[in-house]
């Protein structure tokens, strides 16, 4: 998949130029990171054909979906995509099964519905209406619906943002399983470095419409310069510094802490201060102890 897109965007009162060229090998997962307003959702919508770019091209497995010079612009309906929206966009008038049936392509066999229901562990919810489901369950249905047509590209817009930690990690497992099974080229918008390190093979870091870092998660996350940890120093005991971070206490071991910090200081650690080790987590299927 080869993408190069430009579009004038508006952030507050200012205009800025979105300019995103990237390439990912077929079947891989690319994470798109960056602060809100950086153009992540717009990028996904342009690939889906829901937002018109100013210029550029989108090429998937040799097929052109968009090419401004040749005036090629496939309709959304003719691009082979699965899209999981931030608000899930499940159709409230249809049951879970009907939502999935509606997604079927003309002439596609219904067998895939039960296969996907099983794969995402929502067989028991098939006859429920989406409004009766929890956030995590709705998320699963949205994911299931997006892959029914076996799209060439899967676009996930912060799919786990609204979920708690446990639910998030279960869904990540399921998504990984799905990805390994179908090998669909996937773009994942995410704010969560753990998620990115765990799932993606490539990362794009966007800021104000420009790519500021690009590469493997390990290198991008480590060079992003984002603040990793920020809190108020509560107590110092020799080299142990207790810090309040987002209403919870953490204790860090920092050499010469007493001379470097005093109580009430704001302690912040950037990824530039430390090297982060990150690698894809392999599923441990060995259950013997």
């Amino acid at each position, binding site marked *: 998949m080869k993408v190069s897109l430009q579009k004038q965007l508006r952030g507050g009162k200012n205009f800025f130029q979105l300019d995103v060229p990237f390439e990912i090998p077929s079947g891989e997962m690319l994470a798109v990171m960056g602060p809100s307003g950086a153009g992540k959702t717009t990028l996904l919508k342009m690939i889906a054909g829901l937002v018109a770019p100013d210029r550029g091209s989108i090429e998937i497995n040799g097929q052109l979906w968009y090419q401004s010079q040749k005036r090629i612009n496939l309709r959304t*309906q003719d691009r082979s995509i699965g*899209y999981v*929206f931030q608000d899930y*966009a499940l*159709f409230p*008038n249809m049951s879970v099964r009907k939502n999935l049936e*509606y*997604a079927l392509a003309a002439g596609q066999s219904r067998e895939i519905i039960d296969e996907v229901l099983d794969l995402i562990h929502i067989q028991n919810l098939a006859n429920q209406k989406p409004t009766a489901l929890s956030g995590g369950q709705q998320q699963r249905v949205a994911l299931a*619906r997006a892959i029914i047509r076996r799209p060439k590209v899967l676009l996930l817009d912060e799919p786990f943002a609204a979920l708690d930690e446990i639910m998030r990690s279960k869904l990540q497992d399921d998504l990984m399983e799905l990805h390994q099974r179908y090998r669909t080229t996937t773009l994942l918008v995410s704010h969560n470095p753990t998620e990115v390190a765990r799932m993606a093979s490539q990362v794009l870091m966007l800021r104000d419409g420009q790519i500021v870092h690009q590469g493997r998660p390990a290198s991008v996350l480590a060079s992003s310069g984002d603040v990793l940890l920020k809190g108020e120093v509560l107590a110092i005991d020799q080299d142990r510094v207790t810090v309040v971070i987002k209403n919870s206490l953490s204790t860090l071991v920092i050499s010469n802490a007493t001379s470097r910090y005093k109580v009430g200081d704001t302690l912040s650690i950037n990824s530039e201060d430390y090297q982060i080790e990150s690698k894809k987590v392999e599923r441990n299927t060995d259950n013997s102890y």
Partner: protein
Amino acid sequence: MNWSPFWLSFKLASVTTVLLFLLGIPLVYFIYFYGRSSKPLLKAVISLPLVLPPTVLGYYLLLLLRPEGWLGQLSQQWLDIRLVFSFPGLVIGSIIFSLPFMVNPILSALENLPDTYREAAYTLGKSRWNTLIHVLLPNIKASLWVGGVMTFAHTIGEFGVVLMIGGSIPEQTRVASIAIYNEVEMLNYADANVYAAILLLFSFIVLILVYLYQHQRTQGII
């Protein structure tokens, strides 16, 4: 006591409501999906009957429907139907003056649905028409009901336009609202009283039902 004005009003309102469903939904489809820059203009045209004096609307309809008017001429030539002072003419008039009552609630309900419903259906390969019929309209059933009921009630209640293009021909164009006017002119207050009371009660019941329905739905969501 002659009940035919009520029967005529009921017939006119039923025919108008059914035809407006059939015409209104394609119109809504066009405005919602294609009316990007022309949306304000289209909405203004559709809503004109809400603010125009019925006599103005009636006057222009009269010009259009009379045998010398182009629509009147067409209908006379091809269908051999006279449009002024006749029931078919009343139906055309009613469709135009009740148009905003059908189209506005449906259109505003569509615009209030999350854009992602439409976008999600597109990503699933569905056409605009398919999206409207299977995804969008089923999720605004309440507004379809309200549109239909308000169209029906408003058609029953219209007076000015009907008088201009239909006159007051018994069994043909003398609907309930006209019949009251007629009875008063003949100083027959007893019948006028009954007609008026029935229309008052009908309008009130319709509005109560509409607002009860909306009230229950909002309560249900909370």
